[in-house]
């Protein structure tokens, strides 16, 4: 009851896969705070989640007149705080508000894009992905960075995290039927990174002396818990991923190829991490195309159903008709920003010095 008005309360369903995902991310956050040296504070995590929850709950209350458990927003906030870092935050400084504005900004961007950029009435981008990418690219490496690819030496802490990720992945991906999608990403991506490693690609990272190349290049990228978290818990968002089993395979493989192509040019860990995240921004934008192509492939050329008036109009016609709508233009600009912004990181001198640890107190990544 609120005054004289009765407001229904909608609680989460125990079968909601978002709850499962939240349990996994919270378990990883606990490991990060205790044994994995994550440079993020409890205050940063709680405020980011709180901002997302407050906005989402308010919007739902206004639109539907119900007080709904903000499952998606909680997940968005948690994911942002799981990946985003503010330069100068020390592990163990649990109540630090250092760089809290960047976390709030990422949360706001996530939800604003989710609510306003809705071609066809649905949000196109993974909310936390778009918020993190925006802050990493616009605010830049002087103030923010993504969680390291390397979580520490292969000791009990990292093994515990990997166990949580793998078990959580099976638990979550089976629920949303995305195991095939995850494999469709991992197989080509790890193969392409292997080719890059064999051809002499390298990168520098703040946590390692000297360039990382050869087999180590492959190991540090492909066995990173961060990569698994990205594939299993970010790409697998059913609301923004492709919908049919075949289109999900194409979606996974396409994201892998885009990610690898963007990674290829990156000489820094920051650039590699942003490249992986940006690949999802682009493929989320292309999901309607992926689904249309999948439908066409499944029907086959010359299929009688293609000419049926009951079927949707041809792909080219539908894309052309929707392309000039404001939401579609926004999708194009956002995808372009992610890809071009990521490509531009390859030539970022700041980043190179930061990752080599040569900027001293100016940037304490």
């Amino acid at each position, binding site marked *: 009851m609120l005054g004289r008005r009765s407001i229904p309360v909608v609680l989460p369903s125990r079968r909601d896969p978002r709850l499962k995902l939240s349990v996994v991310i919270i378990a990883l956050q606990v490991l990060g705070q205790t044994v994995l040296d994550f440079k993020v504070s409890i205050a940063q995590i709680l405020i980011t989640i709180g901002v997302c929850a407050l906005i989402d709950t308010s919007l739902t209350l206004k639109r539907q007149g119900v007080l709904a458990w903000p499952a998606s927003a909680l997940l968005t906030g948690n994911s942002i705080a799981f990946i985003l870092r503010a330069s100068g935050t020390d592990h163990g400084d649990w109540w630090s508000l250092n760089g809290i504005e960047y976390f709030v900004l990422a949360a706001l961007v996530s939800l604003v894009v989710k609510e306003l950029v809705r071609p066809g009435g649905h949000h196109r981008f993974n909310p936390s992905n778009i918020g993190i990418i*925006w802050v990493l*690219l*616009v*605010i*830049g*490496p*002087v*103030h923010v960075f993504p969680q390291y690819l390397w979580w520490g030496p292969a000791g009990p802490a990292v093994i515990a995290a990997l166990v949580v990720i793998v078990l959580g992945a099976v638990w979550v991906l089976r629920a949303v039927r995305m195991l095939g999608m995850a494999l469709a990403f991992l197989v080509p991506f790890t193969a392409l990174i292997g080719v890059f490693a064999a051809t002499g690609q390298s990168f520098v990272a703040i946590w390692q*002396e000297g360039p990382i190349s050869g087999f180590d290049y492959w190991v540090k990228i492909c066995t990173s818990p961060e990569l698994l978290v990205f594939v299993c818990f970010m790409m697998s968002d059913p609301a923004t991923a492709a919908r049919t089993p075949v289109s999900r395979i194409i979606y996974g493989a396409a994201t892998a190829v885009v990610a690898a192509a963007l990674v290829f040019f990156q000489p820094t860990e920051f650039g590699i991490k942003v490249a992986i995240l940006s690949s999802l921004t682009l493929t989320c934008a292309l999901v309607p195309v992926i689904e249309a192509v999948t439908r066409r492939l499944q029907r086959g050329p010359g299929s009688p159903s293609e000419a049926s008036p009951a079927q949707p109009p041809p792909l080219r016609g539908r894309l052309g008709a929707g392309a000039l709508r404001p939401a579609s233009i*926004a999708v194009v*600009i*956002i995808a*372009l*920003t*992610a890809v*071009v*912004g990521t490509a*531009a990181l390859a030539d*970022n*001198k*700041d980043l190179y*010095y*930061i990752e*080599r*640890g*040569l*900027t*001293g*107190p*100016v*940037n304490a990544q």
Partner: protein
Amino acid sequence: MVLVASLVVATDLFGTRGALFGSATPEPRDAAFSRIDSAPATQTEQTVLISQPWWQTVRRFRGVGTQETPAFGIGDEAIQWRVTWNCERGRFLVRASGRAEPLIDSSCAGETTTELSGTVEGGLQIEADGPWSAQVEQQVDVPLVEPPLPVMTAPDTSEVASGDFYRMDQVGQGRMTIYRLPDDRYALRLSDFYVTPNVDLEIRLSPLREPETTRDYLSAPAKLAAPLPTTTGSMNFALPEDVDLSRYRSVVIWCPIIDSAYAAATLERDQ
């Protein structure tokens, strides 16, 4: 509009991101080539690296009574400058052209350092009642790139150990070389060196071969080799006369303020 603006900033078009949110990398600057600013430059090198601010000697003056010093300049890159002065009796008054107030107006009381800001043109007008000395220094944060000492390449000098720095608690990189000089003393050279800046760092000699942590380092007594006021560049140091190099197996950059081993290099003995 917001999306287009994001595109421009995210791609750092026209340096917009740097202009809005700053840069971690300063504009390239000339490195210093000597601890004394008036020494003739033998080379030029541009760098974007930053050192812990250190004091570079500009000029040393000595005189008796009232005198005007020769002209000198404080560099544009100087963060501040200072005069360390000594006089025997009476007052010590220092004026600079273009400044209404005296820079220093004090009684003689042993060696005294007065820190100053702003620029100075020409020399200093010094008024004293007897003999005096003054050393002018400027504080800079550019790397110090000293050439090797001539004695390091003398025929009777031998290279006895060398090694590459690795990080411990902080970033440390570069190479160190230890020379035995003709007078049986040792000199240490750091080349292309960088360690995370902090005040009052020290170069220490440790009996441990490859200390990995501060705890490792503290497990065996170490010897102070030299203070490290400059944290970036190439520099030469004379080791203390009583150093028995056979007792030591690594060089460690030590921060006594926070009891932290920043970086280390293992001594690889040259045959």
